[in-house]
């Protein structure tokens, strides 16, 4: 059971642990990754490749591609329609949001 202020009600759904830019977070199994992020108060999912501006969900239904992220190594995954699962690793495509750790890895 999650008690986060962004959750509108408490349910008995199965919780999972996943990672966003290396940070361990909790979400519900099977809900879209974008919903888990928002429930943790996270609105910025990536930065724009061209302008460097922050981006987050817009349409919530797969049309706008604003919510893209790298999920378990697959780039440009729409997080608003990709179910969350135990242990998933999500990265903003842009290194500046990855707390500098991408530089160490590359």
């Amino acid at each position, binding site marked *: 059971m999650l008690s986060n202020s962004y959750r509108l009600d408490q349910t008995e759904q199965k919780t999972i642990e996943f990672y966003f830019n290396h940070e361990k977070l909790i979400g519900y199994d099977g809900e879209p990754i974008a919903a888990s992020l928002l429930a943790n108060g996270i609105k910025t999912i990536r930065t724009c490749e061209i302008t460097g501006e922050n981006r987050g969900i*817009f349409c919530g239904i797969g049309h706008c591609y604003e919510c893209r992220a790298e999920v378990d190594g697959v780039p440009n995954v729409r997080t608003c329609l990709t179910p969350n699962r135990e242990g998933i690793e999500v990265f903003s495509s842009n290194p500046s949001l990855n707390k500098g750790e991408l530089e160490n890895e590359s």
Partner: protein
Amino acid sequence: MKVDVAIIGAGPSGLTAAIEMIENGLTVAVIDEYYRPGGRLLGQHYEDPKAAPDQRVWNGKNIADQLEKKARGLGVHIFTNVTAWSVSEKWKIHLSHPKINMIVSKVLLLATGSAEKALPIPGWTLPGGISIGAAQTFTNLHRVAVGEKVLIAGIDPLSLSVMIEMKNAGIDVAGMVLPPISPASGNHHTPVQTVARLKDVAGLAPNSFIRTFGKYALAWFPRLIAHALRFNFLKVNGVPIHLRKSIVRIEGSEQVEAVILQSVSADGKPVGQAERMEVDAVCLSAGLYPLVDLAETTGCTLVDIPELGGVIPLHGPDMTTTINGLFVAGNITGIEGAKVAIAQGQLAAVSILKSLGKNGSITVQEAKMEMEKARIQSPLRFLPNIDEGRTKLNKLWEKEGVI
């Protein structure tokens, strides 16, 4: 994979059509890019005052779950998380699926629904700036608040309905304002024009309107709104509806921090100083349009009928298009509510059955009548002149359609 009928879109129209067709002897596959079937039904949750007392609560998610269960139980192949990129010949549907990258079918039914128009005001791409449809989905389906203090830009039947849903969920909605009013674009968002359109919202009248305004709300609502023009705002469910204020821009460095609002006269001219209001989310509502991307790849004739929401595939009263073996149903044919989409799915299905020499559970004529009934019973009307639009479409079809 080979089937008699491939359906793109597992919304109410696609799922209803699938059930009718498999029950009458056809093999059916449904493809949807969302992670679960149901389409726009999934986010819908409101009270319908026109329905019978035991059916007052319209819980779209439950209806979607029932349709999905029934369809799967009957053997409909439902593929979710799969996008149909294009279609070729008759019919090869190209998919973004790791294992099945193509479906081959005799008949193709496009039930791709509708999408939201953009409201590109300065700052709208900041995280926290989201579409009204996203607000509906996150509130009612995912049950996650889109912000701690939310402003809605765009006053229309859909945004009013979502505002009430958010309020009921305990979200702080700071108010509703008009979209930007620019003399250059000659737009349709002056207070007077907005009120004229809102008169139609009486048909929506969710329970809370009735609770707020008493038993006569249905009759009174239009007059109440007209009245509100003389004041600064009208309160619905404790939320101020600023019929005389428009949004100028959204501000914030990392994400949404505030909005700049401007008071306007009844005909849309700025009055006095702009003001700043701190919010952390802005929901933008600019209307819906039929999603015809995939229809375009079939080469069927498209027509622009503003009364139906924009460009749609030219189609006949029985949901046939200008291409043999290509049918349409739901919001791709014009923006209407879920009940109409369900009836259109049924109609398209019996038409398809007939085209393949089979009988449906009802006749095409009966299905047409059911659709008319659904149109009358719909609690939510998105466009005021749907009937005019349908008449226009039928004339075009008689002139240009191939039967």
